[in-house]
């Protein structure tokens, strides 16, 4: 099983098992990880599943598509490591992925 670590804005860390083929957002919801709202349910239409990907992982993820970049405009405090977690698909290579949830999803 692929393991993903979520760190909240206060620094608390939670490592959970993720199903390959699902998304990082779905993994967060399934495990009741706080800080991910996913108001639209994964349609890349709301920017409330915004996360910061750990620096060491940024280059290892497929680049954000145009739609995701556009939707990130609706998020707050967007950084170079910002991603929408509904657009990151879980694969075995992502074992150990660490993401930080923002203080607010806006």
């Amino acid at each position, binding site marked *: 099983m692929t393991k993903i670590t979520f760190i909240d804005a206060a620094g608390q860390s939670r490592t959970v098992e993720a199903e390959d083929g699902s998304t990082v957002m779905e993994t967060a919801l399934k495990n009741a990880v706080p800080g991910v709202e996913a108001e*639209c349910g994964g349609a890349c239409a709301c920017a409330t599943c915004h996360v910061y990907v750990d620096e060491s992982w940024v280059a290892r993820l497929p680049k954000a598509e145009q739609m995701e970049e556009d939707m990130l405009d609706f998020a707050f405090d*967007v950084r170079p490591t910002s991603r929408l977690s509904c657009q990151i698909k879980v694969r075995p290579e992502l074992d150990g992925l660490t993401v930080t949830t923002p203080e607010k999803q806006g």
Partner: protein
Amino acid sequence: MSEIIKTDVVIVGAGPTGLFAVFELGLLDIKAHLIDILPKPGGQCAELYPEKPIYDIPGFPMVTGQGLVDNLMQQIEPFGPTFHYNEMVEGLEVLGTPQAPAFRVRTDGGKIFETKAVIVAAGGGSFQPKRPPVATIETYENSSVFYAVRKMEDFRDRTVLIVGGGDSALDWTLNLHPIARRVILMHRRDDFRAAPHSVNAMRELVASKQMDLLIGQISGLKGENGQLGAVTVKTAEGLVDVACDRMLPFFGLTMKLGPIADWGLNLHEQLVPVDTEKFETNAPGIFAIGDINTYPGKLKLILSGFHEAALAAQRVHRYVYPEKKLLFQYTTSSTNLQKKLGVA
């Protein structure tokens, strides 16, 4: 005061569930008015995922959000519902009795309805502009910070900071530029979602120094007594203060329960509890169907909303036609129903 619109039913929300309620009510000769804050029908289907495929509508192996809305609009056309877009229901006043309910419904656009029943099909609530999570922003709202332009005059001779990269941000940049003292457009990246011709027009104004473009994000607000003086902006070079006395942030829409919370309905975690026979709330004559309701076993599926609409309509019939007995009929075989549908 505006003229009072009299109707059998007011449906709050024109998403798929609200639209199908028109159909089920129409078969029972009940007229409906629909009110929605969006400028078009379809609710979340049309606003959040018009192009996304939906796979769990019975009889449709796949249909897009917009495709479903278009089909529903076609399906309810024979019943001639009246739509009131860009309006939010604000007030709801009880006029009747539990046995013979009647309500006065008021919108933020000043429309007033008198109706025998209200069907709340408001989904996740009303779509409202997203508020940037910046400290003290509430204290500037409607004096210096606006999420929409209602009167352009409010911006005359002002220094206006417009934030965003979509059509709203670009359109207002171009529209306010002639009357504002200065317009500053700020966006997090030098890449815009808005229509290319407005982006080009903006770039020409920037090139001829008639307005400013800033790449950055809001970090804080400065001012006093609701009067904005400057916005602190996080840029690639660090924090800078941008002097301005008006700000227009365009960060899209989010869903809020809104005034429904004040109608005296029981609420459970922002949802409206209903019974599963009539989908009626604790207030007789007010129904809640679709994503906004809750009951044991509730599933937030469009198909659940359709079922709920059919059952609620049966009860609404009792309120609208208390003297008439309701005869259950099928659209496949009833000439009476087929006449209403315009196919007999």
